């Protein structure tokens, strides 16, 4: 969102609408935020594209970059899922409905949805990085968008079933006839009906077709590292494989310098890159 006249460091005033744990171990918490000023909501959704992120701001604690986990059609709120790791995410976990919070965004490029029209989509996620892929899937599910894309395949792996996010929705996805869902966990659990194994292996097992397809991969670095070559092996050209990157960020608008990958800034030029683009950049991740 361009900052006409307004400081790009000034967060949009928001309030917590809902806050609930996403994982059984309470390490992941989802926050749904509503806008204090409806004008801010209009501007946000006019600019928003799935795959973008925001900087959530807890005054006195700092900011944390999180991918947007909701689609615009869901309502005038923005959803995020935060893993409790540092001081800001710990403060985010302590928030309750009604609490004030700041948000800067939407930031970054998001998924190239126009470019993907008419193609089959293979969505591959691991762990809490699935949040923006969830936003993407929700976006595609809207009746006015679904027809623009072909076959939809989702592969989602987590370490344990308890760490799987958005459980109710994903359970419902299995019933849909317009998509294929493959869930996986790393180690066997009782009553688990889906795949067991690491995501790259599940991808090899599912063998999504590269014909008229694009693949989107978001996950921890180790998963991404092994999934990208698995897709190349299946015949996906590097131009059709996309991933969303993360690095430490502060400003979110390509000024503070820290998230660079060669000459590109993940915050401003990404976070979504094709494998073809990544192959031309230094391996500085």
């Amino acid at each position, binding site marked *: 969102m361009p900052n006409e006249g307004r400081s*790009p460091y000034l967060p949009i005033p928001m309030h917590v609408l809902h806050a609930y744990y996403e994982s059984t171990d309470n390490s992941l918490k989802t926050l749904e935020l509503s806008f204090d000023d409806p004008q801010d909501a209009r501007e946000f959704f006019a600019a928003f594209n799935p795959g973008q992120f925001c900087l959530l701001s807890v005054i006195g604690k*700092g900011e944390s970059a999180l991918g947007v986990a909701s689609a615009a059609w869901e309502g005038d709120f923005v959803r995020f899922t935060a893993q409790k790791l540092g001081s800001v995410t710990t403060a985010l976990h302590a928030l309750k409905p009604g609490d*004030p919070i700041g948000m800067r965004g939407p930031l970054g490029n998001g998924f190239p949805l126009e470019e993907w029209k008419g193609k089959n989509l293979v969505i591959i996620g691991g762990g809490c990085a699935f949040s923006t892929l969830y936003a993407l899937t929700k976006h595609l599910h809207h009746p006015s968008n679904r027809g623009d894309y072909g076959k939809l395949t989702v592969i989602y792996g987590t370490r344990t079933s308890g760490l799987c996010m958005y459980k109710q929705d994903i359970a419902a996805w299995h019933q849909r006839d317009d998509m294929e869902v493959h869930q996986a966990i790393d180690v066997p659990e009782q009553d688990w009906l889906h795949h067991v194994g690491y995501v790259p292996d599940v991808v090899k097992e599912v063998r999504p077709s590269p014909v008229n397809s694009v693949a989107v991969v978001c996950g921890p670095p180790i998963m991404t590292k092994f999934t990208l070559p698995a897709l190349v092996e299946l015949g996906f050209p590097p131009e059709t494989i996309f991933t969303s990157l993360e690095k430490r960020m*502060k400003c979110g608008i390509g000024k503070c310098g820290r998230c660079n990958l060669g000459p590109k800034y993940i915050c401003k030029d990404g976070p979504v890159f094709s494998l073809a683009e990544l192959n031309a950049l230094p391996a500085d991740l």
Partner: protein
Amino acid sequence: MNLILKKDHLKHLLNAWRQDYEVYAPQSLQNFTHFLPLQDGFELAFDKAHNTRIPPKALFLPTSEALLKFTRFGGYEEVPSETAPRLIFGIHPCDAHAMTMLDTVFEQERYTDPLWKARREATVVVGLGCDEPCKTGFCTTVGSGPFNHAGLDAILTDLGEIFLVEILTDKGEYLFTQLETASEDQSMQASEVQQAAKASMPIAFETEGLKQKLDQNFASPYWEEVSRSCLGCGVCTFLCPTCFCFDIVDEAQRGERVRNWDTCMFRTYSLEASGHNPRPSRVERTRQRLSHKYSYWLDQINQIGCTGCGRCVRYCPVGLDIRAMLRKAHQLPSEVLHA
């Protein structure tokens, strides 16, 4: 049109400017020269052979400044970005040139930094060319020069008793309305001084093909070799006129969100909450510093991100010399086979 400024008239002129501007010029403080606001009875400290220790970028991007002020009940407000008119006098061309590069970062089309922009717009910059270029400097090697005009509103050439003033912008013209015009001889003399200064500077390293060498040798043991004696103190970046990285932290007790200069030479710079660090050692961090200046800036604005001011050479506590590092880089193989 060139003008003549008599040196014995300079103080009078600076004082006259002080009526309309806050005037910054190099003055001595604690063994170094700094750009400080002129007070009554000021003494200038033109150390021609050296730049001020801290580059004047600090007048546009302060080492620490508030971005937001916290208000009661969890609110916050923007820090106003108005700046009173300022004049920087005696800036060297390398530092002024560097500012034009930082403009491309802070005044990008999509996200303009209001604090930077307001200060840039409110400031007139009068340069002093380097007729005795400093020994650690290498401006001519990297596409700048001791009399480069980039980023300046006017530039002075020292001709003994007088300065020859070249007006470069309207802002500059407005400053020097009272001065007499330079004769053709004087202009010629200045041109000779400028040419001689340039000619006195040896080419420090070959820049042709240097970017490709750095890019192709990303995984080379070269980086381990050149970073071995680095202490990771970060002074090379802190005093660099083209470095702009900053951190944003909440100073809860002061009630402010603050940005502070930061450096890619520190471990915590790129350390992620998960514990992962893409640049875990000084090897990767040195690679980032050099590659940013000599490769990534070229991709971004087709200019080397260094103006050859020489501060990193002069102030490195272990004597690491970027010129030597880059000469060595130029010896690297052109195509490295990837395993």
